[in-house]
């Protein structure tokens, strides 16, 4: 919240001065038959980045003065406030939400409803759960078959799977299984515009998975890791070298001082100063290198985690440890095979 400091830095000239608002007489007017209607929809309007929208409307002529939404994990703090200008109050509003991760979230919504210009408002408290995959919008048109896929067997009836889909996605109406007992539904991820297709049908035996795009990326990341390791070793060697030279220079400078040989002393200290500058620039390069290395390693770790998440329980731990082994021994092919089929 320290953005305020940017405004303070330029004092009063950075922004136009605002006019004061008139204070109004307070009237506690009775509110008749007011109910609040709440709707959650996914939205990919062009003007804003893709978001989930909360639509609130009152059933009579009262206006919505402000909305406070309390939720954990989707806002910077723990709340989000929607507070329109005094002269643009209406009976229905839309508040955009941008959930960063796919987790189910409880939204506690407090809406302040009243008449324009009043200083007393009714507060309507509503709680809704935001489903886990609300950032995936239902597709009615056909989509390209994505290249990556996961196939697995579930010991569940189709009906239960359909129920799960209804509760985890934000759908205007519940889905139904079609006539031959199966279901095919496509979603579009609002975040990355990539399609997601869920096909439910009868049996398949083993867990197969293939994500060619991801695996290619993983390969290139591992190459870069190699490079960074090599650079790091080289830089450490250089640094060790430098510290040796520094030691000699300091000794020589001290000797020169004790012998009152100011000329040489100044010379030695001059060289020391240059060497120091080199050390500092070497340090900066090392820092950058280290940062890049860290981000690559993080990517590798994330890919392993994703591979692990495709499976549950014992198979998951098997996959993760096998992946780590393969990376230690630098065996890219084994890695690919593990991710695809879960065995070495």
């Amino acid at each position, binding site marked *: *919240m*320290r953005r*305020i*400091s*940017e*405004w*303070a*830095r*330029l*004092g*009063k*000239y950075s*922004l136009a*001065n*605002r*006019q*004061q*608002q008139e*204070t109004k007489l307070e009237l*506690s007017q*009775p*509110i*008749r*038959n*007011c109910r609040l209607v709440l709707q959650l929809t996914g939205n990919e309007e062009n003007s804003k980045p893709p978001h989930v929208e909360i639509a609130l409307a009152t059933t009579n002529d009262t206006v919505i003065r*402000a909305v*406070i939404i*309390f939720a954990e994990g989707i*806002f*910077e*703090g*723990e*709340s*989000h*406030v929607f*507070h*329109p*200008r*005094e002269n643009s109050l209406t009976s229905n509003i839309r508040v955009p939400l941008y959930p960063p991760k796919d987790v189910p979230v409880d939204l506690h919504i*407090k809406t*302040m409803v*009243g008449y324009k210009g009043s*200083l*007393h*408002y*009714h*507060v*309507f*408290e509503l709680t809704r759960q935001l489903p886990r995959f609300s950032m995936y919008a239902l597709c009615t048109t056909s989509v390209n078959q994505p290249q990556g896929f996961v196939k697995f067997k579930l010991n569940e009836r189709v009906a239960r799977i359909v129920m799960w889909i209804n509760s985890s996605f934000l759908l205007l109406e519940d889905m139904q299984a079609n006539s031959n007992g199966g279901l095919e539904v496509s979603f579009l991820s609002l975040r990355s515009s990539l399609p997601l297709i869920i096909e439910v049908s009868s049996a398949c035996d083993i867990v197969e998975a293939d994500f060619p795009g991801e695996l290619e990326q993983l390969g290139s990341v591992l190459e870069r890791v190699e490079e960074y390791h090599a650079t790091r070793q080289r830089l450490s060697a250089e640094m060790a070298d430098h510290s040796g030279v520094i030691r000699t220079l300091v000794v020589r400078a001290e000797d020169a001082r004790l012998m009152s040989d100011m000329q040489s002393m100044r010379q030695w200290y001059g060289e020391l100063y240059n060497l120091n500058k080199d050390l500092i620039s070497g340090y900066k390069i090392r820092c950058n290198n280290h940062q890049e290395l860290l981000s690559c390693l993080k990517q590798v770790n994330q890919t392993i985690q994703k591979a692990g998440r495709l499976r549950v329980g014992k198979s998951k731990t098997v996959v993760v440890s096998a992946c780590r082994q393969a990376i230690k021994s630098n065996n890219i092919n084994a890695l690919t095979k593990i991710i695809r089929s879960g065995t070495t």
Partner: protein
Amino acid sequence: MRDSEVLYSVELPSPPSSLQLFYNDGGENGDQLLYGTTDGKIGLVQLGRGSAAHRWVLENSSGSVGTRQGGITCMDHHDITGDGVRDLLVGRDDGTIEVFAYEDGDESEPTLRFSTACNESITGIQGAVVGNAGYDEILASTYTGWVFGVTSEPMDRHMTSESGVVHISQESKQKIQKLRLEIDELQQRVLKERDQYQAATQSAFPGISAVPFFSVNDKISLNRSDASYLLSVEVQTAVDNVLLQSDVPIDLLDVEKNSAVVSYSTCDPESGNFLLATYRCQANTTRLEVRIRTIEGQYGTLQAYITPRLQPKCCQVRQYRIKPLSLHSRIHSFDPNRPYNTLTLKGQFTLPEMHAWVVFCLPELPERTPSGERAEFTFVSTFLDTQLQCIYGPGEAVFRSDNISTISILKDVLTKEATRKKVRLDISCEVSEESVVHALHLLHPRLEAQLMLAKQVSLIDALRELGSHETDTSFLSPEYKQILDNADELLAQYRKQPCHLERLYGMITDLFIDKYKFKGVNVKSRVPQLLEILDNYGSLDLQHLINFFQAQ
């Protein structure tokens, strides 16, 4: 007072909020009066025939740095300590009750003996023997309606304990039973009323749901010592949450006593919001305190939406005006020996009209127009120590200040207000070059101190790491050693003043732009150079800055 004519006025260090006769009877000669102020000071004045003499002032300070006690709401004298001399009992608006003893009669300040705190502001206090004969009690009433006593009686007089079983005396048992019955009865009544209300809102006829009215005790006051506003909001029942909204940028500073969970919401200046913060209160909190620092020149409204834990849920809005010269505070005398800039306004306006405009710009002024031909008020800037004098009457107003930015803000705001009311103003400004240099000299020590603090704090991490690697830190220079030793204090100081440095930069930039604005020159393009000089202020110095200001 004679015929409602004021005999004389007494100057006090801050706005008074409570009065009490010294020793409850005025002291030896019946002419001594205690006063308590809104920012927590207590003082003694001796009222003479034609004037008053100040005897002593008890400043507001408490143990650790930064915690300040609230304003005084009520006082009484009663001998609680049992030493034959009456003690001073004080109740404050932040819930603190204190007992002071007079060591030296009326010669010097009393010393603090006991203190206790509760969570609601104290509205009345009295010492007496109430609960039990033989024991003195302090009786206090709070804003939410509690009346309680703080007694000198030992707590367990009525209870004896034998082999793990606690016996309560017959009296106490009866008391407890009676209280329980009362509570049950009240609960029944509340349930009945609530059912009735539900039925009314859901009936077939267009139901009526009136919003229950609850009273809010709010206070916003300027704290001179750290140039910030303290907003305190108190309600008679527990608070659920408070939403603070401002349509101008302000800084929210931390208040240690605050136990509410604060969360900032991203705001879009296009929608008129520069601050949206929610305070979610813990159970049974009836009072909330917030410290705010405004930016002079940015004026607008701060709104607080207060939602208590009542059913049906409702919310009340309180609005606070943030004035253009919000960080100025009233003082009594004006120092004529400073270089001043003068703003003179002439036009067809009456005294009430001009007074209304001045009230629009500055805090701590009465709403009513002062009687007489002319009005005169003097202010000091709590941030910079520059002064402002306002003298105005019908048709003419003169404002003098040694800070050119103050004059610039006044000019902008007054012109705007006059235009709104369609009053033509004849404006003339006399700008003093010296005043700019004088203001820079005033700013210099603050700037230096903040830069030094920032530099020291940035070294702390590095020094700490060195310290943890080497067992013996004697090779460090004395300056670094000092930083390491006082690291915690420095960090605490730094955190207490967020954006302080940014603010100083802002004021210097404003000073620069305003100086040339009065000459008709726009120097915004040279601001980056100015900021560069400020960033390197450690190695350059004040003269360099002054030269930059004066260069053409």
